[in-house]
Every structure is written in structure tokens, then in C-alpha cells.
């Protein structure tokens, strides 16, 4: 049973191999809008065209062929010229108008083509597909290439690819550059220049006759007041230093208040002593 089935299948395959569709007398002609056929080339199932056919914006490509089944001209059910765009694989069929005698013709111009074809960088590939019902084997052969020649004066048609869900390119935010300082050498130089004014000041005071001669006298007259007064002024600078480094406003305000009160109270006494020295003619 199996053997006979296999034999039948083989016979069917052989029978199919015998009868098949083909096309003959095929030619392609490119005609400009006004005027006679400019280029006419023949091609056949076994010999496709080697050079691509140019299709300008006003040109019409006319393809003529005769469909044959087993060598006899016949009208097939399906007779298409399919044009395929190589980048995306998009394919468009152009059915041939077939008469009962098997003669088929189709005319294609740029306005018949989908807009993606007009924007394709590579030439389009055209094939002829002929098939019909029954056991005759259908045929699908590439026959020629089409090169779209766009008119340089008219702008290219716009084509927006439809939205398709997929991953999008990554974006990494570019941060503003961090603020930069000048080279440390320059900062050090000027910092030292500024700091050098302090000994310059003290030295010039000394040269003008600065001294602390009345210190013992002042301390003898009012020791506590003077120590407290000078100490509180230094303490106030200390408070400002703490504010600069770690404390916040609400921490230094009470301390500054206390130090200020101490300065005022001790200052009256201390400066009173200075006044007494002034009144005594020593200043």
C-alpha cells in the first residue's frame, strides 16, 4: 500500500514536472510621456536583463509577454509583475491584463509605485509570477531591475515610517560642567601676597614707634576689665570663626549676644581706665 502510494506520488510529481507555465516574447519598453518608445528590450525566462531599466518621473514602463502552458499560449489566472524594494523587502504586485490568447501587458509609471519605492537607494527588483489552477507548475522568475530616476526639480515625496513599538535609542543627560577654579599655583601666590600684608603692617607700625608700654600700667589699674575686654573681642572673632566652620545662625546668635554684653560691660571699665590715662596726659 505504502509502495503504491509512493509510486503514485512520484508519478504525480513527474507529471507535474512535465506541465508548467512559462512566458515568451517578453519585452520591456520605457516610453516618455510624449513621444514614441525610447528603449525596448527583450528578455526571457532564462535570460533576465543585466542592466537596470531607468524609470524617470514622466516615463511609463510597458511590459509585454505571452503566457504559455506547456508551450501553448493560454490565459493564466495569476499573471503578476511583482516589484520588490531591497532595503525593506516591501513588495507590490502589478497584475498584467491578459487576453484569451495569452498576450499580457501592463504599464507602470512612477505614480503607480508606492512612495517607499521612490525613496529607495538601491534598484528595485522585478519578477514575473505566472500561475493558474490545475497541475501545471507555476513560474516565478526575476527578470529585470528598475532604477528610479527622480526629477531634480521636484522635491522627493515625504514618507514617515509608521509608529512601531520597539526599543528607542538610549539618552544620557549631559550635565552642565562643574564650576572650575584657576590653577592652585595662582591662588597660592595671591593668598600669600595677601597674607604678607600682615607682617608688613606690623613692621611698619614698629618702625613708626609702636609699643605696648602701658600694658603693665593698664593691667595694674584694672586687670579684670582689661583681660575680659580684650578677651571678649577675641572671643567674638572666635564666634565668627565657628559660624564660618560649623555653627549656624541660631547657634551663634545667643553666644554672640552673651559675648557682646560682656564686651560692653567690661569695656566701660577698661576704656574708662584708658580715658584716665588720657586725662593724665600720658596719651
Amino acid at each position: 500500500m505504502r509502495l503504491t502510494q509512493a509510486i503514485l506520488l512520484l508519478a504525480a510529481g513527474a507529471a507535474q514536472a512535465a506541465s508548467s507555465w512559462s512566458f515568451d516574447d517578453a519585452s520591456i519598453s520605457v516610453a516618455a510621456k510624449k513621444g514614441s518608445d525610447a528603449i525596448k528590450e527583450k528578455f526571457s525566462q532564462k535570460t533576465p536583463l543585466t542592466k537596470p531599466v531607468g524609470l524617470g518621473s514622466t516615463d511609463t514602463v510597458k511590459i509585454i509577454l505571452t503566457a504559455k502552458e506547456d508551450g501553448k499560449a493560454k490565459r493564466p489566472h495569476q499573471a503578476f509583475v511583482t516589484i520588490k524594494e531591497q532595503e525593506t523587502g516591501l513588495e507590490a504586485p502589478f497584475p498584467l491584463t491578459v487576453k484569451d490568447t495569452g498576450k499580457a501587458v501592463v504599464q507602470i509609471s512612477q505614480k503607480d509605485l508606492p512612495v517607499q519605492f521612490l525613496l529607495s537607494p538601491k534598484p528595485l527588483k522585478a519578477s514575473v509570477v505566472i500561475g493558474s489552477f490545475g497541475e501545471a507548475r507555476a513560474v516565478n522568475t526575476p527578470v529585470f531591475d528598475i532604477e528610479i530616476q527622480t526629477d531634480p526639480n521636484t522635491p522627493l515625496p515625504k514618507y514617515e515610517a509608521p509608529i512601531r513599538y520597539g526599543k528607542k535609542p538610549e539618552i544620557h543627560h549631559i550635565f552642565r560642567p562643574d564650576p572650575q577654579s584657576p590653577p592652585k599655583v595662582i591662588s597660592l601666590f595671591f593668598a600669600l601676597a595677601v597674607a604678607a600684608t600682615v607682617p608688613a603692617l606690623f613692621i611698619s607700625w614698629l618702625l613708626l614707634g609702636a609699643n605696648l608700654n602701658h600694658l603693665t600700667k593698664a593691667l595694674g589699674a584694672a586687670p579684670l576689665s582689661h583681660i575680659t575686654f580684650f578677651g571678649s573681642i577675641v572671643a567674638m572673632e572666635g564666634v565668627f570663626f565657628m559660624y564660618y566652620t560649623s555653627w549656624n545662625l541660631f547657634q551663634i546668635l545667643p553666644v554672640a549676644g552673651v559675648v557682646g554684653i560682656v564686651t560692653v560691660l567690661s569695656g566701660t571699665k577698661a576704656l574708662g581706665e584708658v580715658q584716665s590715662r588720657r586725662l593724665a596726659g600720658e596719651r
Partner: protein
Amino acid sequence: MRTLLSFLLLALASAVAAISTSGNRLLVVLDDVADKATYSKFFADLEEREFKITYETPKSDSLTLFNLGERTYDHVLFLPVRTKGLGPNLTPKTLHDFVNAKGNILLALSANTTTPTSLVALLSELDITLPTDRNSLVVDHFNYDITSATDKHDVLLLPPPKPIRAGIKDFFSEGAGTKLIAFPRGVGAVLGNGQLLNPILRAPRTAYSYNPKEQAEAVNGDDLFAAGQQLSLVSTMQARNNARVTVVGSAEMLQDKWFDASVTKLDGQPVVQTFNREFAKRVSGWTFQEIGVLKVNWVEHHLEEEGAPNDSNPEMYRVKNNVSYTISLSEFAWDHWIGFNVPEHDEIQLEFSMLSPFHRLNLKEESHRLAAVHYHTVFTTPDQHGIFNFMVNYKRPFLSHIEEKNTVPVRHMAHNEWPRSYVISGAWPWIAGLGSTVVGFLGFVALWMYSAPVDAGKKVTVKKTQ
């Protein structure tokens, strides 16, 4: 003892009810109940997956899709009916409302029966265009079954469909081997350009659709509906609310005689089994939300700076903070949740955006759990303050939509978060000036209070010239 028993019952109940994520009430609309027998294997497979099937004819009175505002069925399967209309209970508006209420529809068409106008109207609203002449058939003179369609070429044999683009998850062709899908006497549709429409099975390049009554001799140029891969044999639409509508062009491919049949392709292997049973299971599984359903379990983000607290999902971030983001995803596979693995060449992306994305980062798989996979990334908030969103917008063909949005404000740097001035080398001259002013002032105070005048009594003699 009682709690143990109730736990067992709960486990049993959840195991039994664990099928489709969106319910198991399936309505089958067919012409007469005798049709049930030709699809017996398909219905048996559905019942094995625990669907409760109700069979109704379109004109029956007890057929209602809605009751008191709620859906009475979760899924509807339409088989070809010979009546022209579907009756007052299945108007296009009712079907439209059904899809809006997250109901799923599986339509099976046939070239031998005209599609009812309600279904054509529903499909044209979804931008799935059927041939206008109501008797259309897809044939292919190159890919047909020699044993059953030697003359008419109306039984197409196709390899199970691989994903069209890289990055799409392959649901429908896994494990097929050399088996082919038989597509007997079916209708091809043309899909619109929307991103919600996806074909599962496209016709081969040499196939075309024609009207057997009017185009029996030849197909002319103007009358060709569509050919090649523009014809979609099994088309899908997933709405934004994740309801799914599938159009299977050939109802006959779901019939018993094409499940596990032996077919022979022209120029193919001598005898091949059909993949129809498994394909029907997967197409119905996708439509009825048994596969391709995704779920977000949780989203967690926190501050990733050393020395800073890293409690989850804080209320606010600052500019230029390092933030870590993790999302946990699961996928439903027939009857239980498993972790979702992103298909190869595809990425899940996190967008950190205000009006437009400042960051769009690929999330990396961080860890697996039993039924979830965690995806994670660390990034730095932009140096722009404002109200930002953590947005994971993952929409892919054949997967349900994921849109997770967490809004978080990003504040300025606080006044005490800037680097201190002693750290900034350009400030050193100014700090030196500060210090020297302080020292000079203290020296002046001491000098003023405790110094004695120089040569107080010395009189300066001025020599007068006279």
C-alpha cells in the same frame, strides 16, 4: 487544624481557578449546534484549559453580552454563520463595548460563507480591512497542499511564523520542527498602519486573494484586493486596555480534520504533519489572555549615596543624586506566573522625564525570583530641578502593555549642600584676606589701648629762616 484546612482549600481553589488571567467564561457563536462536532478537538482543548463554554446561535434570545452593566462572558469566539446579520444582541456597538470592557474576541472567517456585516463593521473600525466583495478566497499556486487541493490551490501550507522584527517574542513557532500550518479556504485581510495591529501569520509572497464568482478566469489589475505579504491570514489587534481581538482567516483550519493531518507541499517533503492543533492552542491562548500577559509586581526607587539614608520610594530627590530603580515583572504562561525575560535584542527602558526624557536607560536584569524577574539601573538625577516621572513604558507586539509612572520632585541644592569655600582653591586669596583683616584688627585694638606715645614731650624745633 481549622486554619490548615482553610489554607488547603484556598490553595486548591487558586490552583483550580488558575487559568486565563481574565476569566474563563467563553461564548461560542455558531450556526447550529451540529457544527460543534467538526471542531470537537479544538473545544476539547479549550475545556481542558478550564474554559466554561456556552454555545449559542446568533439569533437566540438568551444571548446577551452584558447584564446590568457587567460582561456576562469574558471571551467570545465567532465561527462562520450563514446568516447575513448577527441579530440585535451582537450589534457592532455591543461588540465594541465588549472590547472596551476588556473582553476578548476571536473571529474565524471562511471563504465559503459571507462575513456578517456586524463583524465587517467591527473590523473596519479596528482598521482590519476585509475584501469588499464578500466571497474572497486566498490561493497560492506555489505553496499549496498537493493531496487535497491539486486543482484549486486553496489550501495553503505555511511554515509556522517567526517574529517579523528582531526583539519580538516568539510565541507561535516554537517547537514546530518541520510541521506546516494548513490554511484551507480562508480570507485574507489587509491591516492598517496602526501600532496596535500585528499580523501573526502573513500570506506567502506569491499568494493573492480573488473572488471565485467574478474573477474565475483571471485577476485583472484594478480588481486585485491584495497579494503577497500584505495579506494577513491571522491578524491581531491589542487595544490600549489590553483587550485582544484576533481574526483567523480560515475557520476550517480549526476543524478536526486539519488537526494533525498529513499534507504534502509542492516541492516539499513528502508527508508532513500539520501544526494546526498547537497553533490553534497558541492563537486562542494569546487571544484569551493565557500567554503574553505581563504584570508589574512592584516598583522601588531609592537614593544611592554613601552616608545617606536609603529608604524606599522617598518623597523627594535633589539634583545630581544617584538614584537606584528596580521594577519587578512577571509573565503569565498558560496557568501560572513566571518571571518575564525580555526577548533578545529588546530592552526594557526607564525614562526619567519632565516634559521630555532626560534619561532613557536600558534596565538590566538584576535577579530572579520564583515568579518574577527584577530589572534595575542606577543613574544620576539631572542638574535641572522640577517634577520628574519615573516612566517604564513597555509596549511590544503580542505582550500586554506596561505603563508604570511614579512622579517625584527634584529639588535644588540646599544652601548647605554646596562645597565649602575652603575646599575651593580659587577662594584661598579671599580667605587669606579674611584672616589678615582679623589679625590686623586685633593688633590695632591692642596697640591703641596699651601703647605709649612716641616722644610725647619732645618739642619739634622749627628753624625759622628769619
